[in-house]
């Protein structure tokens, strides 16, 4: 891991290379899980909890954007990935906290309920790893 960045040429590390590919794979699975979950919720019982289900859809969209931008790994897509992951982090912390403090507001579980407990808390760890990857692979000469 270390030593690679010491090369004077720099910017050899990319979000779609090495360990970054594992994170892209995990993001891809969550993109699929969140989108599928939101689709089922919105199609079959939207009126039960519109807010929770729209948040599920937003989560799905964010995961899709993060997956594609991290997989592309270009400079422009890195910027988009950063925005998506920041929204993701805010989302999981906000929804997670609200679902603990006020369960009535979230009668239906979303992917981010209780910080993603239904998914082994991976939704909470994922944005942190995403930001770490962006930091670790940041261009040496901006």
């Amino acid at each position, binding site marked *: 891991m270390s030593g690679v960045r010491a090369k004077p040429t720099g910017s050899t590390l990319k979000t779609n290379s090495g360990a970054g590919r594992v994170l892209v*794979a995990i993001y891809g699975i969550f993109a699929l899980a969140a989108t599928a979950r939101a689709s089922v919720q919105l199609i079959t019982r939207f009126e039960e909890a519109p807010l929770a289900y729209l948040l599920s859809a937003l989560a799905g969209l964010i995961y899709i954007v993060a997956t594609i931008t991290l997989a592309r790994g270009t400079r422009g897509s890195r910027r988009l990935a950063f925005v998506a992951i920041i929204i993701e982090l805010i989302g999981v912390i906000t929804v997670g906290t609200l679902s603990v403090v006020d369960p009535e507001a979230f009668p239906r579980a979303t992917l981010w309920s209780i910080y993603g407990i239904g998914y082994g808390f991976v939704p909470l760890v994922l944005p942190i790893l995403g930001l770490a990857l962006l930091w670790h692979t940041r261009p040496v000469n901006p």
Partner: protein
Amino acid sequence: MIDALAYSVIALAGVAVIWGIVTAIANKPPGKAQLVYAAALEIVTLGQSIIAVAKIIGGFRPVELATTIGYLIGIVILIPIAWFWANVERDRFSGIVLAVAALAVFAMTLRLLVLWTPAG
């Protein structure tokens, strides 16, 4: 769903997870046997989904019909995509990519066993 088939998928996927981690620790890309094994896991998973969908068409109604169908479709696309993504660049992380997909297949099959409860 056939319980024996589901447990086979769970066992096969579990081995795939461990295999992926082992090659990553050994700092090797997945070997041919490992890739063939992943393909075999996909075939069994695909068989399970086809049988389950056939049962639904035949009249079986799980409590969460839409969710169950979503799982049955979603579970079969994981390994092929992971296979492709693992081979884009062949290194130790290729094994982890396969392991992540196999873990998802593992977890989704466990969930399918719960979902496969007749409605009312």
